[in-house]
């Protein structure tokens, strides 16, 4: 085919490309109204014979006080109360606590009679999960939490366990409790915490390692993650700390944050579009003989002033350009320039992610330490490891700010609330770098970001929600950005070295980024 036909085909392809993208964008449905219930909380309280009448009165008084003073009255919490003793019984059916009913609920709690008898803990937990699961608010609730308060160990079986789940040599009521929790967790229970009233250290350890969810369980306070056990000396201490406990369960609920899909679409189109245009112009200036249209390349060269042409030269060659000399330092040296570059890029990453995640200044200040730790793990560790490896391979590599990326990053974060692009990059001592080694280093940046995303996902599902959440979004944004195949981004270096490696890395990182937007 002749040149005209090729051009028209390319234009046709581009039109189709734009049309399909626009089509997909317009089909994103508008935001639906969500239920006001954010937490479904079921308190499972021990009313067995070992709890005296006076102690019971203290317990119900403190729970009633908690309903009055700590549980929000804005309809965001659905409360259920289950008591277990010789059997299990629902004392308060799932009720959304609001201004109209909280006093009535608090009074109702005061009137709960004690069951007495054995400790049918498995029955109590089973009933608690059934109440949450069958509640009319279940589908819309963001988080399902069971809070267990007991003064002893289970001693009434419900025959749920068919094997020795805690490895103590026999199948008993303990295993029934574990079986019930495992079933509930499989069906959607997000969190189970436990408070032991005068429970021994050994028994608390058993609850921590076998019952609370998600595992691994921790001793609280501090309430650093979901799935905690807390030991209190007696019911008085239980009563005096119930507000703190409820605050930890309800207030500690972390909303999972992901960038808005629409914002991400606009940001990625904008970033890719701007970078593509500059890259195309730079290609016409620096390499006119390989430009698709010689006439256009010639015209661009004629029209553009020398200053602009110089900037375009620098833009396209910024990664290979010898901005650093060949050094003779140790492989592990961090140069002065690198220190400055790391400090600025870590600060930018931290403030940008804190800004887009938290709506108010107070919340930004609260989450900054966590975001900083995440940024250090992701940005510093990844780049430092790759620098050291490249230096060992004989190519002096340093971390430097990338001004174009920095501007794009700040723009996308502060105007569109979707951090995209990268404020820094690794620059290499060009003469020793081959296409293969450049491709390898670029691919390593994507692979390490994906590996870190898996680690943060592990933290996320283990209950370290904030650090896991930010880490996943940060890593997958970097992996996706680093695999975009437009010069001078890393994706093009991978593509130039191995097309099929680039294909697999791009598909993996883009798919995972999409899943974060729509599923996390």
């Amino acid at each position, binding site marked *: 085919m002749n040149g005209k036909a090729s051009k028209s085909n*390319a234009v046709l392809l581009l039109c*189709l490309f734009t049309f399909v993208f626009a089509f997909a964008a317009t089909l994103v449905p508008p935001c639906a109204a969500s239920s006001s219930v954010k937490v479904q909380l079921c308190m499972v309280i021990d009313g067995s014979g070992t709890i005296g009448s006076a102690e019971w009165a203290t317990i119900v008084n403190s729970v009633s006080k908690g309903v009055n003073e700590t549980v929000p009255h804005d309809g965001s919490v659905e409360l259920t109360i289950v008591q277990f003793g010789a059997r299990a019984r629902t004392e308060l059916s799932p009720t959304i606590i609001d201004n109209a009913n909280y006093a009535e609920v608090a009074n109702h709690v005061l009137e709960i009679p004690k069951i007495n008898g054995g400790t049918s803990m498995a029955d109590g937990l089973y009933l608690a999960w059934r109440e949450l699961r069958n509640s009319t608010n279940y589908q819309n609730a963001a988080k399902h939490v069971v809070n267990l308060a007991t003064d002893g160990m289970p001693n009434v079986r419900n025959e749920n366990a068919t094997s020795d789940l805690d490895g103590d040599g026999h199948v008993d009521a303990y295993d029934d409790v574990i079986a019930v929790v495992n079933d509930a967790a499989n069906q959607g229970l997000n969190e189970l915490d436990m408070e032991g009233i005068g429970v021994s250290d050994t028994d608390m350890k058993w609850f921590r390692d076998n019952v609370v969810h998600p595992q691994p369980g921790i001793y609280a306070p501090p309430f650093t993650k979901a799935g905690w056990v807390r030991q209190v000396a007696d019911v008085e201490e239980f009563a005096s700390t119930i507000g703190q406990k409820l605050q930890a369960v309800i207030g500690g609920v972390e909303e999972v944050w992901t960038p808005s899909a629409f914002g991400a679409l606009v940001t990625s189109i904008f970033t890719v579009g701007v970078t593509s245009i500059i890259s195309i112009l730079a290609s016409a200036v620096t390499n006119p003989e390989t430009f698709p249209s010689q006439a256009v390349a010639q015209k661009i060269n004629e029209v553009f002033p020398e200053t602009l042409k110089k900037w375009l030269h620098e833009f396209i060659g910024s990664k290979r350009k010898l901005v650093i000399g060949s050094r003779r330092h140790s492989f592990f040296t961090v140069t002065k320039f690198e220190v400055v570059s790391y400090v600025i890029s870590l600060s930018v990453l931290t403030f940008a992610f804190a800004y887009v995640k938290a709506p108010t200044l107070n919340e930004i200040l609260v989450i900054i330490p966590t975001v900083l730790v995440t940024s250090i793990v992701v940005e510093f560790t990844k780049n430092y490891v790759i620098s050291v490896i490249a230096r060992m391979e004989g190519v002096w590599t340093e971390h430097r700010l990338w001004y174009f990326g920095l501007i794009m990053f700040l723009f996308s974060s502060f105007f569109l609330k979707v951090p995209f692009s990268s404020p820094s990059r690794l620059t290499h001592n060009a003469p020793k770098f081959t296409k293969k080694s450049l491709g390898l280093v670029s691919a390593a940046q994507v692979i390490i970001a994906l590996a870190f995303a898996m680690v943060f996902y592990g933290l996320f599902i283990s209950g370290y929600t904030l650090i896991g959440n930010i880490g996943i979004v940060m890593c997958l944004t970097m992996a996706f950005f680093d695999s975009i195949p437009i010069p001078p981004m890393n994706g093009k270096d991978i593509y130039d070295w191995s097309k099929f490696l*680039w294909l697999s890395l791009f598909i993996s990182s883009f798919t995972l980024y999409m899943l974060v937007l729509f599923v996390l």
Partner: protein
Amino acid sequence: MRSNHWEYLAFVLLALGMALTISGAIIYVHYQQYPQRKLQYSGIQIPLILAGACFAVLGLLAFRRTRAKKKAEAMESEPLPPPPPPPPPFPP
């Protein structure tokens, strides 16, 4: 556009198409299991799969074009047959 440009376009379209199709399929399965999660995006999976399929098909078409272009370029760069030998000089 030369064959390497078409090849680049083909890889990009194919990668984009496959990524959109795979993510659309996973999101589809996810929303089947948890229909009430992220309600605002509950209808996105089909458009994603359709867009992905379109991109992938465009990518495959671009690959065909790449092959054709490569053939044409190979023919263009084939050396010309040697010129015929000069006629023998006329005998005096």
